[in-house]
């Protein structure tokens, strides 16, 4: 018996390690793609830095200093080594280590994402579960129309409307959220309300729709009918029976939506001038600041893979058939 349960745990561990290994390999491939694309970006950083009037000698010298004259493969190798040791290179524009730039910006982005997730996930799950429970009824139909229209509106429009209403017309909130000196809860609220609202708008709708589909899928299963025939009330059926089975698909939906957040962050940060990692990347692209672009792209991809990995692990660990094989 003990031996059997050890074997079971070993198989779950192997499954988990498998996923982690897949994630690592994917990340490596992604790094190659990022490197390839960024080295093909039009323009030359040395030229860009020195301006159009620079002498060819000066450009050549700078190229050598930046390592731009070496073969792409050698540069990729050096870059990878740097990544592994946390050395992200030096920003061409700011002439400071990329790691320092990231260190000032990343926590701000993470905070924005975390606040958004904390607000949106519970709302979305509640909407999804409630509309699944009342599927086909009026409440479900209204929520359905609401979430559909929320998905359809692009976030730059929502952000613009939010600014027009809350900042320009009502003057409740500042139009920009530069997140300097946040001392009190009210300041925190004033800074984050609009970006978070904008980001939540779209992902709540997405997550709610996917949660609804996942829960309905389970509500059609035989064991749910069985629970109904045991006299269970609708809330008990949905929360105790259907929901645990929907955790895998819901975790995936959440991961997918939160990774969508990564894209939304780019737009929202630039509209509200929020000093996060996305606006850092946008600036870097305009300046041809390749090391920063590369580092930011890696961070985004890493975040995406991490989300998907966590969703996978949640699905594996929540499922007794995979836990106890």
């Amino acid at each position: 018996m003990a031996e059997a349960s050890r074997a079971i745990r070993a198989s779950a561990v192997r499954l988990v390690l498998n996923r982690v290994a897949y994630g690592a390999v994917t990340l490596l491939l992604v790094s190659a793609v990022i490197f390839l694309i960024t080295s093909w970006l039009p323009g030359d950083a040395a030229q860009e830095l020195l301006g159009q009037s620079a002498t060819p000698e000066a450009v050549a010298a700078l190229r050598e200093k930046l390592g731009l004259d070496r073969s792409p493969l050698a540069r990729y190798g050096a870059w990878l080594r740097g990544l592994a040791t946390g050395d992200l290179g030096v920003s061409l524009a700011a002439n400071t280590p990329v790691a320092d730039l990231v260190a000032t910006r990343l926590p701000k982005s993470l905070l924005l994402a975390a606040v958004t997730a904390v607000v949106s996930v519970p709302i979305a799950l509640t909407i999804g579960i409630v509309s699944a429970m009342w599927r086909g009824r009026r409440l479900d139909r209204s929520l359905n129309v609401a979430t559909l229209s929320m998905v359809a509106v692009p976030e730059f429009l929502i952000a613009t409307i939010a600014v027009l209403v809350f900042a320009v017309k009502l003057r409740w909130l500042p139009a920009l959220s530069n997140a300097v000196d946040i001392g009190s809860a009210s300041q925190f609220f004033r800074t984050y309300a609009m970006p978070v609202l904008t980001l939540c708008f779209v992902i709540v709708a997405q997550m709610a729709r996917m949660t609804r589909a996942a829960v309905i899928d389970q509500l059609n299963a035989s064991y749910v009918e069985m629970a109904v025939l045991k006299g269970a009330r609708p809330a008990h059926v949905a929360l105790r029976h259907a929901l645990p089975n929907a955790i895998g698909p819901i975790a995936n939906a959440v991961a997918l939506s939160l990774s969508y957040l990564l894209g939304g962050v780019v737009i929202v940060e630039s509209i509200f001038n929020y000093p996060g990692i996305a606006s850092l990347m946008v600036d870097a692209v305009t300046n041809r600041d390749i090391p920063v672009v590369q580092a930011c792209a890696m961070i985004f991809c890493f975040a995406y893979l991490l989300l998907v990995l966590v969703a996978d692990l949640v699905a594996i660990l929540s499922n007794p058939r995979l836990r106890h094989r």
Partner: protein
Amino acid sequence: MAQPHVQVTGLCVAARGPGGSEALIVRDVSFAIPKGQVLALIGESGSGKTTIALSLLGYARPGCRFAAGTVRIGSTDVLSLDDEELYRLRGGQVSYIAQSAAAAFNPMKTIMDQVVEGTAIHGTLTRSASETRAVELFRALALPDPEGIGSRYPHQVSGGQLQRLMAAMALITEPELVVLDEPTTALDVTTQIEVLRAFRHVVRERGTTAVYVSHDLAVVAQMADRIVVLSEGEVRESGATADILERPRHDYTRSLLAAARPKPRTTDEPREDTPLLEVRDLGAGYGRVGADGLPEIRVLDAIDLTIPRGATLGVIGESGCGKTTLARVVAGLVPAARGEVRFDGEPLPTNLHQRTKEQFRRIQIVFQNADTVLNPAHTIRSILERPLAFYRGVTGEAAGRRVAELLDLVKLPGSLADRRPAELSGGQKQRVNLARALAAEPDLILCDEVTSALDTVVGAAILDLLAELRRSLGVSYLFISHDISTVRAVCDDILVLYAGRKVESGSRSALAAPPYHPYADLLIASVPELRTGWLEGLPPRVTIPIAETHAAQPAGLCPFLDRCPLRVPGLCDRLAPPRQRFPSGKEVLCHREGEDLARHQLNTAITT
């Protein structure tokens, strides 16, 4: 007579069809059950049995509604209850045992959580009191490890055990009425009998009133006091069990009874003995192939068989014993790890990539579930044209003619050619499936449980068709089934498979009388007979617990060892059993001598 405990009067249930129009799926159904009696609802799939059974819990499936009639249980008028009263009725006063326990248990929760859920919902017992009662029920239902089994998850116990666990789940609130919906249909016969015994025991002992839904008359004969025969949502006939079985009045009841006693469809006339298919010492399985050349998961071991040209070999055994794997190896879908397969005198490559198209053409396989094989997006015509073009190079007008011929061969109207699979009934789909195999003009057709998903009457028609095709086309069959009476009806020779080993083989007549291999004996003795009192008359099954498993068990021991009531301690658990040939011509894999076996099996002669 006193007021009956359950009274259904004029029940009508309406369902919305695909077009949105309502139709009655249950029409004017009435019956009554005295307290403590068991009533059976019998009929084919789609006859409305489940719909009626669920009405006893005041439940209509989504899309259905109660259109008329009353359901009374004691003094409760079930169909007029409000939601709150229904929650109290369901699982409290009336409980339900579903057809597939595997689907009806929530895979995410432990068995105990689900068994005691009813008492928690109805607040009748504390958790620890209901766990104690659950363990008592587990014991009464003869479940292994009654203390520990509750902490497992549904996927960790067998189908037969789950079905009994569901009975415990239904009985824990001590309901006055239990509704059992085809509770043993998904089980093997040898398991079914234990479950039937357990159900009968607890229902009788507690004096519970019960409704038993089934399509199997022989099972119902063991369980019910009264039978209601349904078809197309209407009551055809009802009466006491013995009356319905012995003096059926309605034609429909007679056709059900006829299909339940399959008639032989094979002749005992002498036949050619040129072997078409020969399998020698076959071993096969799945998974990675190890250093010894054997696969990780071994399914079949040391299988020998021969199918003479034009003959039918039946393979019988419980689910998971390797029947389908055997068919897949012969068809070239799974490589053989060991042994030899010869077809028409030529060795068949065991590696499928080395087989020629011609070799694939001459052996066709037909599966149980036509739905998974027939592409729902294609018309019947294009489904049949594909193998015609691939194997026979027949296209265009000639293919059109051939499609018509094939449909004619399987007795389907030619107008079906332009329909899609979803528009066909189960029996029609299985005929198309057969026509698809016939398109290749094979010499051998591997039939894997081809009638198991069908109603008895529809399945009987398919068996007739197979027999006719054999006569007119001279094809041979490898006929796989878990149902011994079906196999006996269509096969010349029979092979009994247990845990991937051939435990018994011989001609149909040799397999009709003892001595049997102890597993074959158990199998035959477990098939319910179409008479009342059969189950009660059975001797209780004895299984000696295994004394001690030896640390180093020699390989090749008897596969049936731990279930065998006749095992010889010191012999069966030490030495591999020999393959004996008895005077009747049958081969048996057992240590016991023929006379010795026969002495224990006096009662197990086959009566058809």
